[in-house]
């Protein structure tokens, strides 16, 4: 899969190797004078004196990453309290504490900037990437972090026996090869051009290569430790893969968070792990963390994290209202709660901040283009039908009712903040116009009506669409659908809301027994990484599940040859993935979007309104506005390490 470039020209800089990079770095690290005297958190002093910790200068790399604080230099101390949901909530940890890759994004989610790697070089054909690590990086247990760790991680991911996988390390058609030059230098080499690697590495997925420290994890691999299998059996596992998973697994973060021994590069390391019966997950500062502030104080400022594990959203909401949560948006910052949190600000001594959603439309109606029922298939693939539906939806009313006036009518298209924003694409067919709707529906052959005022399909059956939705995921969806149900009934289309649970929602795809499914408009900002609605790019392109199978080749037995326009898009996207030059990639993406706009495959409703986070008033250096996307972790992407308590 390929990543987006948020801002073309920004990307050029990122891409144009070390020359530019130097400038860029200097820009970023004004105050990174080598002579800088490093300071550490008071809580470490004792351990240093007692000698069980080396002094701070030895713990930090030669050239530590200097973080420019958002507001000002902070002070040490305090515990950051938040709430998580339990085993299925490993994502929260990833977004909060685990965003430490070779490179990272800047706060605007535009530039790719150095992180563990202090510099890199890209061959012009985009097949060879050379990275230089900071000198003297150390894992949280004090062991040096070197190129070997990267190589080992890749080796593990590519090991067929070990069921961990990555969307860039071990993809079939263009896997990565690692060449270790020396402890600090290594190369990623690809057979085909991989123009988007830097972006991939800057996303949360890029951190994968730093999750399996060789010195600790190699003991569980039979290739490095002949007794690995025996060890696993003693622990009561079938074979080494289980033990490896339990100790080091990627993808199964719940496992990594469950193993406090696993060395990390994060700002905090786990002391109370996330186990099945955990009531809280506790972290404390990593004394070897490699970042400092402008005055050379080792980060993070905050001593530790305390994550309350709670299945009860009500409890978390109350905790937040009661000022017992220092920063949080995930889970609790819902549309419905906003009024409550707004009122509670004084009592809870917190304030609300802005969270920009990366999704475009708050709801995407995906009709199944590959329906087994030929009549419905024909109908759903009929553009007129979709346009008819779109005109029949009174979007403003939905916005007023469900979002209390927040947002605007919007199709599934890049958000206004995105360089790819195209007003025409975003607004086409969004005006509420029953006449036009009826026109289009009749153009689509729905001329007859039955007694209940439902239009009849070509074979005389009433046009009835069962829409699958997971209300548990976003309560608004049910509300919106209930309104759409009434609105569409007006023009003689009968939709039934089928509120189902996640598992089934996904099971229905391969078995292809669904009329339509509903999801949010991912890819509003991460247009290139997440083109699922623009063309059948992957599993999540539910509107053309068989076409995407044909494209990805993941599930050949259900694959089906796509329409020509879709095939054209696919070709363009393949070219895009290989393209090293950012501008060219942007162009290609625009072509893909143009075709999507022309064919109007899925129906959107309204622009997803901004969300909000809540932060205690004494928590400083918190960016006033953040972007929320999976690929660009929030709040970690905003350097939570330099937050501090006043």
């Amino acid at each position, binding site marked *: *899969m390929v990543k987006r470039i948020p801002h073309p020209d920004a990307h050029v800089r990122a891409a144009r190797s070390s020359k530019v990079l130097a400038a860029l770095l200097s820009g970023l690290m004004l105050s990174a004078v080598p002579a800088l005297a490093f300071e550490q958190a008071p809580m470490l002093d004792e351990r240093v004196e007692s000698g069980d910790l080396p002094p701070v200068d030895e713990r930090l790399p030669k050239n530590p990453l200097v973080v420019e604080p958002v507001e000002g230099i902070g002070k040490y101390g305090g515990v950051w309290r938040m709430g998580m949901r*339990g*085993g*299925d909530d490993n*994502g929260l940890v990833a977004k909060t504490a685990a965003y430490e890759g070779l490179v990272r994004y800047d706060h605007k989610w535009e530039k790719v900037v150095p992180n563990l790697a202090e510099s890199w070089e890209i061959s012009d054909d985009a097949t060879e990437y050379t990275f230089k690590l900071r000198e003297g990086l150390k894992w949280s247990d004090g062991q040096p972090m070197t190129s070997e760790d990267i190589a080992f991680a890749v080796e593990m991911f590519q090991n*067929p026996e070990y*069921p*961990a*996988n990555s*969307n860039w390390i071990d993809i079939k058609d263009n896997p990565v090869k690692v060449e270790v030059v020396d402890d600090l230098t290594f190369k990623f080499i690809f057979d085909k051009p991989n123009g988007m690697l830097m972006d991939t590495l800057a996303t949360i997925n890029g951190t994968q290569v730093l999750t399996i420290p060789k010195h600790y994890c190699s003991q569980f691999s039979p290739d490095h430790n002949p007794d690995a299998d025996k060890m696993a059996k003693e622990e*009561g596992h*079938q074979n080494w*893969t*289980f033990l490896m*998973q*339990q100790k080091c*697994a990627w*993808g*199964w973060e*719940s*496992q990594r968070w*469950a193993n406090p021994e696993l060395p990390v590069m994060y700002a905090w390391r786990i002391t*109370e792990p996330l*186990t*099945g*019966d955990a*009531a*809280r997950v506790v972290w404390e500062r990593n004394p070897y963390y490699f970042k400092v502030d402008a005055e050379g104080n080792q980060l993070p400022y905050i001593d530790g994290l*305390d994550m*309350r594990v*709670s*299945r*009860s959203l*009500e*409890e978390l909401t*109350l*905790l937040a*209202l*009661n000022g*017992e949560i220092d920063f949080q948006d995930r889970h609790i910052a819902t549309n419905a709660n906003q009024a409550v949190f707004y009122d509670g600000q004084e*009592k809870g001594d917190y304030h609300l901040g802005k969270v920009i959603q990366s999704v475009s439309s708050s709801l995407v109606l995906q009709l199944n283009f590959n329906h087994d029922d030929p009549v419905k298939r024909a109908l759903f693939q009929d553009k007129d039908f979709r346009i008819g539906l779109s005109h029949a939806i009174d979007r403003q009313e939905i916005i007023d009712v469900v979002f209390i006036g927040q947002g605007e009518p919007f199709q599934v298209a890049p958000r206004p903040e995105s360089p790819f924003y195209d007003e025409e694409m975003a607004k086409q067919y969004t005006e509420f116009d029953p006449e036009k709707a009826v026109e289009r529906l009749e153009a689509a052959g729905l001329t007859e009506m039955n007694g209940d005022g439902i239009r009849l399909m070509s074979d005389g059956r009433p046009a009835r669409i069962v829409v699958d939705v*997971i209300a548990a*995921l976003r309560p608004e969806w049910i509300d919106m659908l209930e309104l759409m149900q009434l609105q569409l009934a007006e023009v003689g289309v009968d939709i039934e809301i089928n509120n189902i*649970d*996640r*598992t*089934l*929602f*996904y*099971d229905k795809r391969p078995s292809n027994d669904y009329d339509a499914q509903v999801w949010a408009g*991912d890819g509003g900002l991460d247009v290139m990484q997440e083109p699922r609605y623009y063309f059948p790019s992957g*599993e*999540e392109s539910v509107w053309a599940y068989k076409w995407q199978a044909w494209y990805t080749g*993941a*599930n050949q037995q259900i694959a089906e040859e796509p329409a020509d326009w879709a095939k054209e898009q696919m070709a363009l996207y393949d070219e895009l993935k290989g393209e090293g030059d950012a501008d060219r990639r942007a162009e290609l993406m625009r072509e893909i979007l143009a075709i999507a706009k022309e064919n109007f495959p899925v129906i959107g409703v309204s622009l997803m309104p901004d969300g909000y986070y809540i932060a205690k008033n004494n928590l400083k250096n918190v960016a006033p506005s953040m972007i929320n*996307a*999976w*690929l660009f972790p929030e709040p970690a992407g905003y350097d939570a390490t330099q937050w501090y308590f006043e």
Partner: protein
Amino acid sequence: MLRFLVGRLISIVLTVWAISFVAFAIIQLPPGDYLTAYMAELSAQGERVSPAELEALRRQYSLGDPFLVQYWKWISGILAHGDFGSSFEWKRPVTELIWGRLGNSILLEGLAVLVMWLVALPIGIYAAVRKYSLGDYLATVFGFLGLAVPNFLFALVLMYLTYVWFGTTLGGLFSPAFERAHWSLPRLWDFLTYAWAPIIVLATAGTAQLIRIMRANLLDELKKPYVTTARSKGLPEWKVIVKYPVRVALNPLVSTIGWLLPTLVSSSVIVSVVMNLPTAGPLLLRSLTSQDMYLAGTIIMLLGVLTVIGTLISDLILAWLDPRIRHGGAR
């Protein structure tokens, strides 16, 4: 008495076996398996798992096996070496995960039962002795309110009100300091400062049932001649009632303890979810939704076993209380 015990034991073994089977079957009912559930969750968060990885995992966990094979693996593991299998989600032996929480459940529900009895008995007695009096009505209404208010609603309202009035958030069973500590007096105290709320919620639900049974039984007994005899001895009225009819009316009540358990467990699942209590409940709920079959299966089975044991205990208490049973007399 011995025959009685042996018979009971046999039926217990059978019941437990049946429970284990059904427990396992229940988890298999929903479509898909753990991995589909897992994938669904990840993609809901915007993460990805490739079909390839899923296949690998499915092989790793031998989820492909037919139901009976899986069941056999599980049950034989249990019988052979007390191995309840390991949780998919946590990659840990099931037993590691549940003991603590099961303990909390038992403690919590035990206390709830205690409270129930303390509340229900006096009310029940009063309601029976003063049948159809205003007091009877008030007592019963009060008792039944608890039954009538849906648990989750009660719990939530309680949480909210304590937040509004006392500025504290209920939830959990321990303060951070004692979260992982071993049991000790201070920890018990800490526990009680948190547990009172869920106990109230749980207890109110069952009290009405007890009141009803107690009232009915006592009404029966009050008509018996031996009460008149006692009265004719010159005992004060309260003593007549407490020493004789109440004492006899208790017996059938005792036999309800066993049946109380499953209802309690069920309601505690809901309460625990709302108030985030570290009991078996949420773990069970979670494992059921994530189709973590060995974990869920084990919890359901153990809860079943608990119930069966509960019934056995109440039978034993009954035998101890009621000479007619103890001495195998006419029942």
